[in-house]
């Protein structure tokens, strides 16, 4: 670290906090408040990277990440922008896209071969013969690296968050216009969110010391910032660049946490009723030969290095500028004691007279109508040639810093993604919004204003307009603000310089730094027919890097219009795409959500050793056996009795005069046959006849039914019923009881004996047969809906009880089951048990290509009914006898003790003729078995089919015989006993 400039109130550094970091293994130190790039610059680093294509040295050009020049690997994370990353203690920084070090890059010789790499070079070379392209692709990729990801690095994702905001007014940009807008809207009692990409408010006023209304601009800005910070109606986000504005004023941004904050980065979504965009201006780079040599930097970069960070940007400085801010900067640096040799100004008139007088008295050579034409030096600036714009005169200066810009360009990103239309304004030299999306307003410097009072007032007006868009009556205030604005200076004349004098072919005059897009490339693109900016962008490689619309944005449009000889006011910049500022995918992802529902028995199942898995929206116990084959669980259900927590099952009540009609509409069966005391199994199809749900329905009383759905379907059932009856004006009520009820399945030969111990109700086969329904009183008077079903193929009773009673009932059954050595079973055991029985699970044995009929459930369909308009019935009718459909079949694997995997393909030669839905090595049978969906030609009983893995390295093949999918107890004796 070198000695910094004396303390001054514009600075944002903490001299008491010395921060130590390393760059390429070398110890360096900076001060609190420094960005990584600033600290590196202060430690003497001048070459930060090598360019993508020519490996030219690149230096510190901007301070807000406007190009890829300062992309670094920081603490193992590639592509971090060192201009935006705040310096932290112990940071390890290294360079990218170099072999060795950026200042002695092995590949730098490529710079001399640029004439062999014209625009579109990658597309046109190396493709003939085409076979060679992969070889060159590989070579080019190795050389043109953009950072290397360390895939072994531990990534701490616990410090990334996301917030979702609703604001009345969102303000983008924390300059004085944005702050005034926020205060004006907040003054109307509205809730305001203000987004600023820098760590502090103030915009470009933050470092300016000239006085306005007897107060230095930076002090005015800080006074305003204090008001904003103190205003409780304004929620302020600093270090929060906006990444885009989306439909109906949804703003996305991300915020980097300050030291000590609970997050590293957080993703922000803010829905606003109205929006003020005051995103300001950035500098338009001067396009001249070698305009990106290290030692060339923007006006604000040099200025802020001195004013914000107290760093001397250079020893001998030449300016080539295009607006009054450039003059002001030159004067300011001179007043700080820096050696300013000359100022070339691309304008010939309309300069601020006061600034010119001061420049003269400071003894700085001033050259109006001049600009830099060539930057001399090797790895760093050694001198600069300045020329008169018409090329008639040239002079040279020896210097180590060229401060260069061609004036300003508006930050069009946020408004552009919001869908605003822009047009180049020949007066201000900016692309300015001509058509704004509804309830969006722009203010400040991006509208062409430069006078501090005008900027402030434009902010106030925009804030009030935004308030009016939120239905606030602000007419009095708005009139006053507009009257004030009318008395203030309007738009300022901008700079229309397209490129510096004596550009020649423009071989080394860079429009885009990130992709090494030169002026020559733009000319080549146009000559090849890629003459529009959008085409040249792709062909010549402009604006494809992180700089996007910043460094190359306006210059490309202006250059193309100049090359094509078309009026500049007709030119259009290339489409701006979000994210406007690069952000890491991890920040978009945010915290890793693992949100799920727990059954009322969750803790109990956990305590019993349940191994849990996510199942749809639920977290459910899948295994109670360490071997995950669940042999003991399965045996216990087949031979004894088991308990299953099936609480995720959907439970519904439907009642009202038209309840039956609604059931008739969505279920494929004749629901008039559902009777009290009986469970009716049926299914639902969608409009194309695919089965979407199955379950049982029981009639509780007249116009009053209780039904179950699959776990996955429960969340959409009400929507489904209501959708398919939306034109009917029927009177029925539908209640989703899923989350308010628990479900326990008592299954196995001893199920009746167990359950009988906790209820006085007669559970004998005569009194309570298969598919019957009863409301039982169990234990101390808890009522339970009891359904005698047989999903797992054994005698079983499903008890549906209030969620709050579930634990009591489970305990009751558990206690009663001790004499039978009752055991819990999980989803995997249930899955094996039901598959052996040939019971399908919707979505496992069915999919979008198969209908109810294809999976063997056609018997459920009441095909004669055309009056109920059953959902999907016409589709079922149409494909009833259709050939070439997929069918669900059972299969027995010929090899013993092995089985394919769920999802393996069924093959015939090289053709895929189906796939395996579920397959297991059977516990109860002497073979492996499964169900598969196959083309109907392979669905005949006795057919031999072959199966193998769809992808991957496993080449195991299996042969199997097609059988009916009922493997276990095909006659259903066991569940009827």
């Amino acid at each position, binding site marked *: 670290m070198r000695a910094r400039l004396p303390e001054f109130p514009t600075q944002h550094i903490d001299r008491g906090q010395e921060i130590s970091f390393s760059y390429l293994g070398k110890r360096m130190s900076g001060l609190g408040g420094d960005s990584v790039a600033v600290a590196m610059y202060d430690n003497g680093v001048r070459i930060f990277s090598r360019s993508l294509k020519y490996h030219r040295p690149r230096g510190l050009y901007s301070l807000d990440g406007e190009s890829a020049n300062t992309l670094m690997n920081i603490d193992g994370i590639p592509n971090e922008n060192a201009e935006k990353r705040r310096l932290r203690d112990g940071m390890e920084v290294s360079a990218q896209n170099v072999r060795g070090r950026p200042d002695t890059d092995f590949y730098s010789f490529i710079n001399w071969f640029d004439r062999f790499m014209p625009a579109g070079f990658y597309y046109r070379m190396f493709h003939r013969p085409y076979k060679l392209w992969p070889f060159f692709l590989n070579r080019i990729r190795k050389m043109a690296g953009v950072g290397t990801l360390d895939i072994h690095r531990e990534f701490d994702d616990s410090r990334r968050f996301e917030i979702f905001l609703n604001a009345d007014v969102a303000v983008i940009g924390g300059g004085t216009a944005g702050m005034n807008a926020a205060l004006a809207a907040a003054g109307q009692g509205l809730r305001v969110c203000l987004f600023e990409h820098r760590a502090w408010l103030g915009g470009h006023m933050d470092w300016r010391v000239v006085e306005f209304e007897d107060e230095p601009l930076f002090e005015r800005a800080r006074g305003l910032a204090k008001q904003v910070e103190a205003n409780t109606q304004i929620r302020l986000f600093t270090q929060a660049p906006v990444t885009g504005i989306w*439909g*109906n004023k*949804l703003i996305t941004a991300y915020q980097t946490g300050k030291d000590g904050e609970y997050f590293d980065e957080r993703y922000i979504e803010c829905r606003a009723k109205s929006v003020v965009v005051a995103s300001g201006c950035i500098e338009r780079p001067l396009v001249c030969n070698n305009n990106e040599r290290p030692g060339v930097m923007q006006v604000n970069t040099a200025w802020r290095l001195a004013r914000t960070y107290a760093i001397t940007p250079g020893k001998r400085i030449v300016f080539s500028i295009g607006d009054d801010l450039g003059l002001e900067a030159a004067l300011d640096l001179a007043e700080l004691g820096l050696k300013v040799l000359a100022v070339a100004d691309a304008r010939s008139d309309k300069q601020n007279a006061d600034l010119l007088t001061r420049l003269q008295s400071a003894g700085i050579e001033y050259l109006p109508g001049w600009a830099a034409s060539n930057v001399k030096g090797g790895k760093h600036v050694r001198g600069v040639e300045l020329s008169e714009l018409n090329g008639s005169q040239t002079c040279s200066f020896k210097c180590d810093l060229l401060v260069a810009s061609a004036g300003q360009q508006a930050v069009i990103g946020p408004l552009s993604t919001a869908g605003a239309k822009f047009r180049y304004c020949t007066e201000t030299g900016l692309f300015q919004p001509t058509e704004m999306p509804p309830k969006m307003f722009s203010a400040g410097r991006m509208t062409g204003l430069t006078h501090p009072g005008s900027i402030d007032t434009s902010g106030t007006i925009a804030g009030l307009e935004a308030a009016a868009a939120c239905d606030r009556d602000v007419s009095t205030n708005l009139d006053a603000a507009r009257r004030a604005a009318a008395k203030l200076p309007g738009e300022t004349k901008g700079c229309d310089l397209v490129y510096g004098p004596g550009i020649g072919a423009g071989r080394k005059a860079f429009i885009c730094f990130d992709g090494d897009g030169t002026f020559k490339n733009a000319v080549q693109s146009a000559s090849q027919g890629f003459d529009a900016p959008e085409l040249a962008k792709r062909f010549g490689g402009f604006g494809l890097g992180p700089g996007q619309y910043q460094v190359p944005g306006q210059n490309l449009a202006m250059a193309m219009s100049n090359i094509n000889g078309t009026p500049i006011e007709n030119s259009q910049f290339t489409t701006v795409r979000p994210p406007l500022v690069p952000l890491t995918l991890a920040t978009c992802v945010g915290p890793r959500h693992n949100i799920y529902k727990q059954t009322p028995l969750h803790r109990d199942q956990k305590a019993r050793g349940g191994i849990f898995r996510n199942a749809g929206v639920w977290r459910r116990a899948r295994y109670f056996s360490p071997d995950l084959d669940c042999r003991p669980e399965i045996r216990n259900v087949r031979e004894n009795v088991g308990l299953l927590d099936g609480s995720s099952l959907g439970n519904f009540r439907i009642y009202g005069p038209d309840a039956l009609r609604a059931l008739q509409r969505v279920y494929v069966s004749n629901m008039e046959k559902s009777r009290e005391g009986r469970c009716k199994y049926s299914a639902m199809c969608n409009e194309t006849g695919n089965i979407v749900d199955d379950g049982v329905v029981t009639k509780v009383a007249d116009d009053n039914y209780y039904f179950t759905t699959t776990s996955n379907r429960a969340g959409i059932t009400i*929507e489904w019923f*209501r*959708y398919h009856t*939306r034109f009917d004006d029927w009177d029925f009520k539908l209640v989703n009881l899923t989350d308010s009820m628990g479900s326990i399945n008592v299954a196995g030969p001893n199920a009746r004996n167990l359950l009988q111990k906790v209820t006085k109700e007669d559970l004998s086969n005569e009194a309570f047969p298969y598919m019957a329904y009863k409301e039982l009183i169990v234990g101390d008077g808890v009522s339970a809906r009891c359904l005698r079903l047989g999903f797992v193929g054994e005698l079983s009773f499903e008890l549906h009880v209030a969620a709050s009673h579930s634990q009591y009932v489970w305990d009751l059954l558990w206690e009663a089951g001790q004499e039978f050595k009752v055991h819990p079973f999980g989803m995997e055991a249930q899955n094996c048990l039901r598959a052996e029985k040939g019971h399908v699970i919707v979505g496992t044995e069915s999919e979008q290509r198969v209908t109810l009929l294809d999976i063997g459930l056609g018997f459920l369909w009441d095909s004669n009914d*055309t009056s109920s*308009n059953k959902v999907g019935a016409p589709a079922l009718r149409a494909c009833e006898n259709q050939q070439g459909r997929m069918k669900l079949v059972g299969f027995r694997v010929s090899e013993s003790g092995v089985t394919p995997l769920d999802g393996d393909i069924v093959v015939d030669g090289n053709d895929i003729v189906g796939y395996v839905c579920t397959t297991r090595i059977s516990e109860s049978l002497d073979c492996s078995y499964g169900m598969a969906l196959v083309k109907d030609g392979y669905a005949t009983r006795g057919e031999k089919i072959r199966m193998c893995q769809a992808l991957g390295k496993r080449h195991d093949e299996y042969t199997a015989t097609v059988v009916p999918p009922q493997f276990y107890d095909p006659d259903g004796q066991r569940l009827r006993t």
Partner: protein
Amino acid sequence: MSFTITCPICGERDVYEFHFGGRDRGPPPSHDNLTIEEYLRYAQFRTTRTEAQLEWWFHSNGCGSWFTTWRNPANNREEKPQEMSNDQQ
């Protein structure tokens, strides 16, 4: 997909809260004497439009109601067709 939909019960809310139910095409055809061609036209065919259309939406993460609203798929704004909004003025 980031626009808003106005639920008649809950007001303007983020589109993520809703399920889309398609353009309003009136009630489905009666199944009596329905040919498969007619049915497929109803079940499978959709017209892409770039003008305001009446649509069905379900407020799934809200009040749970189906309702219709005008939306222009070209810009995702809730707006009525030109001629209708003129009528109302």
